[in-house]
């Protein structure tokens, strides 16, 4: 099915969520023939691709190397005081979010794919919307809404005449609160993959189940659900990866986890080694997650035994059941998108644009500059790597690409630490050498520079562009190269007249996806940004930390609006890429 993949979300509708582009572990799974289509002398590309892959994986190796560095005093202090809390909180968070996204994601996916009720088509699309809301933005809104002085509790007190201590109210600033708000923005990963898996199952298989004596419900639980299991597991682990790397939400809700710990150790205690060791443990959690996902999926990569597809025979729901299904699908949209988005909008309206207009624009300009630059670089690098594999399809280039894409599984704070340590070392060494030799100081050349920040973004989001570019390049089959060459085109003309027009739209998509991810990025930016340099995400975070939630709404809402772009792309891709349809349409 490789060649049939759609541009935006390769394999989204094909169940093997390992290649999910929007959020994913970059397993480059395209199987290529050994034939390169008559290209010669291409070793240089391959070497270049390997160099880039190595460069991009430096931060991960740096952090990993700190596992072997002997512990210092600060580390011992951490172990004595907070480390257990970090581990316990992280585990609770992972557990809570895992349950939450499973229930919401699979439940809604089942309802919209297997049942028919009024509003189904709209909900099917709308359930993706929470994807546009960064975790920190939902944390700001719920934090503001549900805290003691927030409108909800104030209203309750007003209505019932209660005062503090008279009533119990769930504490939003807790592990549980964080898990709930995270689940409401992260469930779409599970929803997307589970929905795709349910959809792509050939109805024939389910119908065979029914002829073998299973009721509709039993066919679903004994055939459809087990078949969808690999996709669901992948969806959950993607959501959990986001949970592990989240910084803004847990920091705002006062939950001490590894990401907040790294930050505190780095800036508060000023101990790089200890921060890196925390990062290494976090990295270990991530790898555990990846391994867990692989093991749980196990050999359960189901292949379709039937190539026939038909529209799913949905069960019609009526009356109360239809209303219930409608509500069940509507509530995640309300809680994960409409309510936080609406609250942000209300705050923006409330404060007007006068108060922070100037700074908002400056920060927006910074965000645009960083996102534009990083997305251009990420796409260029992805092109380089994809062509490296295409021209030299050998195990070395393939694994180099795989390593280069690993950054997506690694939390931003870990990447930032992995970049800052070698850069600081370089700056200090250079500075020391210049002072000793020439008596001049170079100061900090690379650390805290925009270049370092761009590098971090490319490391973190390369997988997004790589998967998209890779999938689009796979649409240009080696046979097309062969045909173009025999029709009189040299290699350059083949690239210009066949490759470029086919992959150009996907390059735009890839750039756009990276762009939005960079706009949303918070922890790496916080750690690596130059002095007094803010982005929208950092600006919103700083205001929210100062309890200026209303002022934080404008930058946060801007990010949510930008986040709607990939959601739109995604729903477009989903509506186009249905299994069972013939070859993907590539219209200019």
């Amino acid at each position, binding site marked *: 099915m490789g060649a049939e993949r759609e541009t935006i979300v390769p394999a989204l509708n094909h169940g093997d969520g390992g290649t999910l582009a929007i959020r994913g572990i970059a397993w480059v799974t395209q199987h290529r023939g050994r034939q390169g289509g*008559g290209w010669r002398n291409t070793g240089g590309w391959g070497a270049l691709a390997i160099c880039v892959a190595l460069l991009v994986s430096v931060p991960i190796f740096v952090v990993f190397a700190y596992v072997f560095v002997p512990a210092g005093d600060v580390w011992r202090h951490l172990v004595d005081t907070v480390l257990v809390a970090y581990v316990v909180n992280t585990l609770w968070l992972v557990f809570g979010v895992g349950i939450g996204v499973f229930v919401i994601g699979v439940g809604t996916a089942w309802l919209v794919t297997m049942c028919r009720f009024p509003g189904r088509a709209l909900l099917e699309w709308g359930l993706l919307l929470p994807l546009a809301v960064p975790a920190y933005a939902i944390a700001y809104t719920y934090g503001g809404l549900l805290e003691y002085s927030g409108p909800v509790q104030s209203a309750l007190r007003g209505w019932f005449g209660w005062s503090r201590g008279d009533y119990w109210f769930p504490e939003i600033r807790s592990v549980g609160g964080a898990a709930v708000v995270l689940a409401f923005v992260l469930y779409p990963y599970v929803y997307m993959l589970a929905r795709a898996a349910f959809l792509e199952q050939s109805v024939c298989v389910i119908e065979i189940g029914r002829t073998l004596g299973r009721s509709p419900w039993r066919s679903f639980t004994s055939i459809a659900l087990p078949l969808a299991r690999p996709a669901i597991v992948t969806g959950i682990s993607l959501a959990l990866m986001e949970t592990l790397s989240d910084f803004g939400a847990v920091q705002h809700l006062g939950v001490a986890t590894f990401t907040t710990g790294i930050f505190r150790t780095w800036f508060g205690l000023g101990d790089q080694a200890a921060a890196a060791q925390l990062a290494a443990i976090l990295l270990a959690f991530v790898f555990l997650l990846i391994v867990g996902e692989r093991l749980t999926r196990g050999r359960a990569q189901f292949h379709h035994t039937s190539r026939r597809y038909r529209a799913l025979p949905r069960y019609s729901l009526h009356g109360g059941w239809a209303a219930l299904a409608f509500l069940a699908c509507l509530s995640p949209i309300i809680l994960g998108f409409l309510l936080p988005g609406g609250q942000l909008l209300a705050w923006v309206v409330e404060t007007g644009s006068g108060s922070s207009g100037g700074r908002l624009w400056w920060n927006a300009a910074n965000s645009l500059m960083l996102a534009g630059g990083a997305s251009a670089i990420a796409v260029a690098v992805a092109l380089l790597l994809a062509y490296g594999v295409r021209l030299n399809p050998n195990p070395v280039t393939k694994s180099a690409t795989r390593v280069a894409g690993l950054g997506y599984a690694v939390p931003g704070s870990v990447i930032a630490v992995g970049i800052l340590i070698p850069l600081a070392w370089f700056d200090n060494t250079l500075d020391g050498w210049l002072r000793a030799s020439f008596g001049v100081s170079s100061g900090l050349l690379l650390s805290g520079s925009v270049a370092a920040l761009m590098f971090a973004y490319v490391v973190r989001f390369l997988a997004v562009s790589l998967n998209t570019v890779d999938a689009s390049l796979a649409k240009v089959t080696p046979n*097309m190269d062969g045909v173009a060459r*025999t*029709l*009189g085109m040299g290699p350059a003309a083949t690239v210009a007249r*066949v490759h470029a027009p086919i992959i150009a739209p996907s390059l735009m998509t890839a750039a756009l996806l990276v762009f939005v991810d960079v706009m949303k990025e918070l922890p790496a930016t916080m750690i690596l940004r130059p002095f007094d340099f803010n982005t929208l995400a950092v600006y919103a975070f700083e205001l929210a930390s100062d309890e200026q939630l209303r002022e934080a709404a404008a930058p946060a809402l801007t990010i949510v609006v930008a986040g709607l772009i990939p959601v739109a792309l995604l729903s477009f891709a989903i509506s186009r890429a249905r299994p069972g349809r013939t070859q993907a349409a590539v219209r200019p």
Partner: protein
Amino acid sequence: MTVNAAVPGLLFAGVSHRYDREPVLRGLDLEIAPGEITCLLGPSGCGKSTSLRVAAGLEPIQEGRVEIADVEVARPGFSVPPERRRVGLMFQDYALFPHLRVVDNVAFGVREGDKAAKRRAATELLARLGVERYAKDFPHVLSGGEQQRVALARALAPRPVVMLLDEPFSGLDRRLRDRVRTDTLEVLRELSVATLLVTHDSEEAMLMADRIALMRDGVIVQSGTAAELYSRPESAFAASFFGEVNVIEGTAQSGVVATPMGTMAAPYEDGCQVRVFIRPEGLNLDAGPGGQAISAEAEIIESHMLGPICLVRLKVAGNFEPLTARVNEGGLWKTGKRVRIRLDPERSFVFPASQEM
């Protein structure tokens, strides 16, 4: 370019090719005259597609040489790039450019004239192949058969000297395949290009080819007309790959091998284990009692009327696998009937059992 009939359109002389040290072609010799259609036939992995890629200039060669219209295009360390070879190439998946309309796909390789002239030339070819009404469509809306015609038109548009077709009909369903095959054949003959067609389907090779080159493990094991290959196979492989056969084990004795259905010449040492390959139409059935010729008694265990002929499965007395026979007069051979069978030496072949099938 005027084509001289004495000069082969495509010539392979002792061509060897390796992928990562694994030899795929081992000294391939092949010659195709202009206007001739040669089928390269063989099981998958025998190197037939690689020969095609070598001819197109998509793979280099390590030994031998390749000539197109009397011009050397490849030798070890030298290869004319595909775009300067004047070859047309067509793949099983057609590889139509998805971003170009049908007419622009075909015009892609036309070299002479301005854009309008190129499109005119393309439209003419599309009309010749009966798909001009799709000129403005994108390839994905076309059916398999239509895509095949467009791919053929595209490959023919630059007026190639050599046409290379890689399993060009295997993507089509059976009924469509026959039509498309006939049309393709007609156009290829009309334009008098040297055609190399790769297939694993012996029936297709027999239908299409002036000459068939049977290939195995990177070498051509036998080449000739369909009739030659079918009725005079030179090896056990050729006998069994080219059409159905019944196989009976035996031992050579005084230059013959004896079977219950008759004896066959077996010019091998006494005691040599041999196999007798009998085509289904090489078994003659006799309803009456045996005459003077050696024949074996058998029972019909299955009988299928296939229009003018009848396919019969027979159980011969003794320790033999059931045999398949293809006979006329379908009405005569009912299941359960006892008959005498006799083999036709013209349609049976003997090879040593040591030869691989």
